[in-house]
Structure formats: C-alpha cells, structure tokens
C-alpha cells in the first residue's frame, strides 16, 4: 500500500514537472507607482484608471488572445443594411455586485443608456466625451453642447431589458471596436442617478460586473482585486486575487522585490537590463507589444522658440523638400533606438505611421499595402551605411544650393526637444545629435537639445511650437486607419503644417493640398472597406514620401520578469481589453525566457492561421 502511494506521488510529481507549474487560485502581487486617480470610469482617460475599470466592468464585446472579437456582455449583435443601426442582444442573468460581493441588480440595456447619458452631461466633466462624438452616435455632440435637450433624441436606446440599439449619423466601419472603450461601458443606472458627481469616489460607490471585484481600494497604499465567484465566465478567470501595492520607487525596487519573492512581476528598465541579462538571463522576458500607439518625428512648420535659435531660418529650411529629405535620410533610427531597447533596437522600428496589425486588407497587414512599397527608400538604411550617407549628402548638396538662394544661413539650428525627466528620451536625442551632426556635418546643421519641463510638457513644447523636429506620439481613438490622420488634420498642434496653406511656399502648398484631398477621398469611402483602407494607405505614404513625417517606432515591448504568460491575455488593436487579467494563468515560478519564446512562437503561428 505504502509503495503504491509513493509511486503515485512520484508519478504525479513527474507530471507536474513536465508542464510549467501553475499557481492558479493564488495571489498575483505587484508594486505600482502610477496611482488610479478615480474609479469613475465614465470620466477618465488615464491608462491606470482604465486598467482598473477593464478588470471590474465588462464591455459589450471583447477580444481573444489572437485579436478576434468575441461575445462578452452582448451574446449576439447585428448591423443594419445601411450601417447606421447596431443592435446588441445582451446576455441574461449577469448581475451587478458591490465591493463585498453582494448581488445588487441585473445588468440591463438601461445601464448602457444611463452611462452614456452620464458621459454626455457636461456637468460631470467627462474626459472621454469627445470619443463618443467620434464614434458617430446620433446627436451625442449636440446633446453635450446643449443644442438637443431631450436625451431620447440621442442615438442610444434600450428596446427592452436585453436589447440595446445604437443609431449612428454616418456608417462607422470601426463601431464594434469602439464599444470596447470606457465610453460604451455600462453603469448601474439608479446608482448614477443617486450619486451623480460622487459616482466612483471609492470602491463602495460603484458596482462591479466584471471578472474581479475591487475589495480594497486605498490610494497610495493598496488595491486588492478578488475574483468574482459568480462571474458569468468564471471558468476563464484563473487568478484568484490581484494585490497591487503602492511604491513610489517601484521601478527601482521591483526587480529586487521580485528576486526576493515579494512580487510576481517587475518591469526591467533599460538601466538594470544589462545586469539582469548578465546574471539572470533565463528570467528576462518581454511584454507583448501594444498596438495602440505610434511614435514619429514631426518637422515643425510653426517654430516658436527663442530668437537665438533662429526660428525664421528654420522656417525657410523646413519648406525645402531636399532639406527635409536630407534629415530624413541622415537619421540612423536603429542607432538612436538603442537608448530605448539596447538589446534589440531594430524590433521597435516602424516605417509607417500606423502600427502593425492595426488593420488589414484581405489578410494583408495595413503596413504592408502596396502604397508603402517605396517609403523605405527615403530612410537611412543601417545595413548600408555608406550608401545611406551618400544619399543624405546628395540631398544636402541640393538643399544647400536651393536654401542659399532662398536666403537661409548655415548651419541651420535644429531644435530637438525632449522631456527632461525621461532618461530614455534624453539618451535618444543625444545619440541623434551625435550621429546626425557626424553624418551631415556641423557646417550644415547644429542640433540644439532643448529640454522641456517635466510638468505640463506638451504645452511647453509641441503645442506651443517649441521645436524643429520632435518625437511625437498618437494613440488610436478607434480601430480604423482614419484615426492616424487626425494629428495632421487642419488646425492640429502637432506639426502645424496646415498653416503653410496660407503662405506663398508654392511647393509645400501643392503637396499639402494633394495630401488633404487624398484624406478627404478616403474618409468619404464608407461602403468598400478594402478600398477605404487602400486610400488611407496612399495618403499616409504620400505624407511620408514628401518628408512631412518621419515614422519612428511602435510602442515598446518592455523587458520584464513575470509569472504570467503574456500571450494568453486579450489582444486588441483598440480599447481596454488588453489590460484584462482574464484568460491568464499564474505560474508557480517566473516564466523563463525559453517558455516565453515558445509561447511567442505558438502565438505567432496561431495568428498566422
């Protein structure tokens, strides 16, 4: 008998040793430094706040780990023939719970209507109201501005408790993805009515219907998320508790805490990465990259910095296409990206503005559409340094001749702006200065590193035109390529290029007119999505090929040490599903680099199918 038990135990042990041991049902502990500023998910646009909301409140639809839309609160949905009406049939029996886990009421269509009304009430000062406007809901903006006073005229209706209907002013191809953002989340109507501005002050002033219940909420101290045992999809929620502990220096302390077993995950900054790769290479893994952001260098057409750096001279230079080409061809982007990811800088590189896997035409990723075939020829090619240098110098020669005629003086001051407390960015601009001045010569350009303040950075820099070239970024507002034209539209405060339309810079004006016409054409195409996407690709390629924008990098995939398999989580081009812990297992030990690579390969293979 004894022997049998022993053999059985041994067999069991062997079995466990084969697959990574799971600690499901356990607690996942992390340090955090960015505090949740409000639990009122209807008014906030901050990542930390939304990450919290994503785990405690469900959306109409969500994504699987391959980026496919799957049912969530809505079991089925349909779009009308004209594309103007979306009807969602809600899952029955989903309940609201309070922070003690007590059932409060059933989730009905009315809760979605009430939440939208809340967002569109100016008094509540919601930071995401504009996103409702852009998703095309009828009369949303008019109601917000007081032009329509009866909320019944706004395009959201509860036909019955389980049928929710949205009416749009125009067909919006990306509407389904928009419903995964906070703007379309439900909130218990009677509670909103009762609490008004006080909704979501603490964990007792809101109800939960998601995978987790926020049991403890002490800002600057601790958040404790506990699995909702009655969750409609409880079988796919594997981590029992998530304990987030506040530490203002978490970036410095987390890696050590992870080694001591105090936390289950820690991100590894560029600073400590070398050390970890040297001492614990087997534990260093990477996060899955986020598709929602893109970084690009803008040429400023409205320089407003101090006279000593010669903004007028820059304005002459930037209107010369060869000058812009020369800078574009001279910037070794991979070289400067080592400041952000020293191990694999090329993996961050992006040759178009739209991030990869954001949208696709017949299975072809948007960024690989034919329109972009030529764009790379304008960039520095790090595999051919000599050829690239020759190309850049040829542009330089042409630019010098033309600019001298136009009355510009050399060297042209290039004010390169960065954020003073962002060490990666600071490193990056130093690398760029060194490399570009080295290639083009200090007789041609003089790169001025311009430090922006840590607080209110954008107001002091980009928005007020205090740069010549600067790394700017944009995040998708909805899952359609149109969102990537917004930062360059008329009246933008990114590169201010539209301001040139009023001037006599014939070449620039002609280029801009062509570009804006292309964008208009693409926007007007609503029926044929493939055609629409191709048109947007053409417009984006035009912007790059005429050197208005220099694409730079995707959102970084951070290095980390963690007990989670990042490839199990939801994968979405837009919205907040990426932030969910649902579908993820908690491993007994840190995921090794090997396991991570294996899951990445498996995930890539599944994506390709």
């Amino acid at each position, binding site marked *: 008998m004894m022997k049998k038990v022993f053999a059985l135990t041994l067999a069991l042990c062997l079995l466990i040793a084969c697959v990574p041991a799971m600690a499901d049902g356990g607690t996942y502990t992390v*340090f955090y430094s960015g*505090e949740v*500023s*409000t639990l*009122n998910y209807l008014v*906030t*646009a*901050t990542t930390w706040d939304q990450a919290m909301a994503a785990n405690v409140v469900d959306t109409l639809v969500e994504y699987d780990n391959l980026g496919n839309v799957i049912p969530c609160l809505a079991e089925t949905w349909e779009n009308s023939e004209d594309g103007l009406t979306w009807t969602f049939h809600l899952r029955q029996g989903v309940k609201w719970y309070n922070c003690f886990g007590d059932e409060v009421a059933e989730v009905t269509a009315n809760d979605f209507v009430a939440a939208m009304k809340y967002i569109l009430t*100016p*008094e509540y*000062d919601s*930071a*995401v*109201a*504009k*996103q409702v406007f852009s998703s095309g809901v009828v009369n949303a903006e008019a109601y917000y*501005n007081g032009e329509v006073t009866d909320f019944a005229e706004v395009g959201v209706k509860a036909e019955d408790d389980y049928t929710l209907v949205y009416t749009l002013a125009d067909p919006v191809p990306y509407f389904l993805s928009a419903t995964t953002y906070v703007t379309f989340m439900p909130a218990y109507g009677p509670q909103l009515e009762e609490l008004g*501005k*006080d909704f*979501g*002050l*603490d964990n007792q002033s809101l109800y939960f219907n998601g995978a987790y219940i926020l049991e403890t909420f002490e*800002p*600057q*101290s601790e958040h404790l998320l506990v699995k909702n045992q009655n969750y409609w999809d409880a079988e796919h929620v594997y981590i029992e508790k998530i304990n987030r*502990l*506040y*530490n*203002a*220096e978490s970036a*410095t*302390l987390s890696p*050590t*805490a992870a080694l*001591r077993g*105090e936390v289950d995950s820690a991100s590894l900054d560029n600073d400590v990465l070398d050390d970890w790769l040297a001492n614990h290479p087997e534990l260093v893994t990477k996060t899955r990259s986020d598709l929602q952001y893109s970084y690009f260098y803008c040429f400023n057409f409205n320089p407003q910095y101090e006279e000593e750096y010669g903004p007028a001279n820059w304005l002459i230079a930037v209107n010369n296409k060869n000058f812009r080409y020369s800078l574009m061809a001279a910037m070794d982007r991979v070289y400067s990206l080592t400041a952000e990811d020293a191990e694999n800088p090329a993996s961050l590189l992006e040759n178009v503005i739209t991030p990869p896997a954001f949208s696709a035409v017949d299975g072809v990723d948007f960024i690989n559409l034919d329109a972009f075939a030529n764009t790379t020829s304008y960039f520095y090619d790090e595999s051919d340094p000599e050829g690239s240098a020759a190309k850049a110098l040829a542009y330089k020669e042409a630019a010098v001749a033309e600019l001298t005629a136009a009355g510009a003086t050399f060297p042209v001051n290039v004010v390169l702006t960065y954020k003073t407390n962002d060490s990666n960015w600071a490193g990056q601009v130093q690398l760029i200065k060194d490399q570009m001045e080295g290639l083009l010569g200090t007789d041609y350009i003089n790169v001025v590193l311009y430090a922006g303040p*840590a*607080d*209110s950075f*954008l*107001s*002091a820099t980009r*928005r007020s035109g205090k740069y010549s070239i600067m790394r700017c970024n944009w995040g998708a*507002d909805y899952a359609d390529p149109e969102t990537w034209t917004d930062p360059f539209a008329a009246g933008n405060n990114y590169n201010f290029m539209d301001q040139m339309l009023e001037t006599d810079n014939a070449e620039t004006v002609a280029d801009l007119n062509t570009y804006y016409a292309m964008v208009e054409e693409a926007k007007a195409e609503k029926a044929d999505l493939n055609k629409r996407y191709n048109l947007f690709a053409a417009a984006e390629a035009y912007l790059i090929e005429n050197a208005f924008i220099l694409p730079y990098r995707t959102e970084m995939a951070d290095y980390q040490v963690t007990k989670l398999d990042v490839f199990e989580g939801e994968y979405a081009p837009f919205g907040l599903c990426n932030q969910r812990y649902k579908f993820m297992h908690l491993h007994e030990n840190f995921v090794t680099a090997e396991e991570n690579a294996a899951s990445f390969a498996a995930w890539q293979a599944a994506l390709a199918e």
Partner: protein
Amino acid sequence: MLKYLLKRFARSLFTLFLILTIVFILVRQMPIEGYFSNFDKMTETQIQNGLEQMGLTQPMWKQLLNFYTRLLHGDLGTSRVYYRGKPVWDILRTKLPLSVQLGSLAILFSMLVGLPMGTLMAKYKGRFPDQLGTVFIVLIQAVPAAVYYLFIQLYGTELLSIKLRFDEGNWISWILPVFSLSLGNIAYYAMWLRRYMVDESNKDYVTLARIKGAGEGRIMFRHIFRNAFVPMAQYLPTSFLNTVIGSIYIESIWSIKGMGGLLVDVIHKQDNEMILGIVLIFSCVGILGLMLGDLLMTLFDPRISFTKKAGEV
C-alpha cells in the same frame, strides 16, 4: 509676556493669511495642461467647461473669497486628482499621525544620540572621540541621502529579513526608516552642539568657573551646555518640520503613507485644494515653530528679550 505672545499670535494669523493668499495666486499661474489628463484630445469647449467646473474661470478675488469663506467654515475642500472627490482633511487626517510619529521618533532618537555625541566631542576636542565623531558627521554629510537611504533599505531588510515595504503593524519594520531619518539629524545636532560648546568653553565665565574650582562636569553641563544649547533650542521646532517634510525619500522607498512626498506629489498633479490644505498645515506648524523657538530661546537664556526696547538693560 502674555501681551507679547497675544500680539505675536495675532500677527501669525496675518502671516498665515499672506502665505495662503500668495500660494493661492501662485498655483493659479500653473499651466492649464496640468489640470487635465487628456488635454491633447480635448476640444476648446471641453477645456473651458472643465476649467469652469473647477471654478478657475472666475475672477481671482472671487476665487479667493470663496476659498476663505469655505476655510472659515472649516472646509479644506476636496481633492481633485490625488484621491478624486475625497475631502482634503480626510486624506490628511490619516497621514498626519503616521508622519508625526515617524518624525517624533526620529527627532527623539537623534537628540538622544546627537546631543551626547556633540558634548563628548566638545569635551574631548581634538582627541579620539572627537575624531571618531567627526568621521561620522563627515560621512553623513558627504554621502548623498538618496544613496545611503537606498543602501540601508537594501541591506537592512536582508539583515532583519523583513519586507521591502514598510508595515505599520510590525515594529521591526519601523527600525530602519526611523534610523535612516535620524542619521542626518544626529550629525546636524552633534556638529552644531560641538561648535557652540567649543565657542562657549573659551569664554571668560568658563575660566572663572574653573578658577573658582567648579568640577569639570559641572562646568560642562551647568555652564557650557546650557549656553551652547540656546541657539540649538531655537531650531528644534523647525527641525521637526523639516524632518517630516524631508522624509520624501524615505516615505517613497518604503511606501510609507505619510506626508513626506505628498506636497511634491500634489504639486506635480496640480491638485490645488490639496496643495493649499498641506501648505496651511505646514505653515501653521512652521509659524508656531518659530514662535516656540523664540520662546525656548528666552527660556534658556534670560538675557535675550523680545519685549524690552533697545538700550534697556
């Protein structure tokens, strides 16, 4: 004396009013972007709307009037960013006691160690205890706090086998933060006490006392220490305040829920009501501290007087 104190108190209220008004006006000069988390994607109407909600579009005098009206009713306002919607006083109420405890323990410990150290150093001036003390003071002064705090935390926790985060309920957890916080003060007290005592010991009355045959111990404590302590006494209240405010590094690395980094934090977040609430508390302590310091000084040295006119002896 009572009249003087009353006058002084009335004046302190006036100072407080000036400080609050100036800070009130200063924080309103901060850039608008800081008020919004989503500034980049907001329309002009939304921004105006938001500013109106915060009451920032009203004329300055009206905002001030509202602020003081509320204040007189005992209302410090509510936090806007730090803990949205929570009354400022409720936030501070939980944090103050912890910081005060931590600060008091640190000051107490520093005095217990620092004052005897300074006395010993003065007594054995130029000899081994003095040199040893000097080495300690020099080291504390020389190595940046930001560095040795982290060092103490990293190795101290390993030594005591405790967690990296501070745990209020566990007394062992208090040792390292209090110790770290005290080091600077110990060095400060010892250094200045030694300085003042050495200065005093060269004075005629000390020579006289010695000639009279008073014992060294009596000279040291009855005469020198008492006189040397006068300028120190004045600093004690301020040094307490500085310890509490200066604990920003300590509270950050240990995740202590105190007041240390709070001010810097809410200034970065432009949480106006919180800024004013904290400034109010700190200035009250600061002004009272100055008053108390002056009072302590007259208590220890009867020759110093704030009420007598110049020339009167």
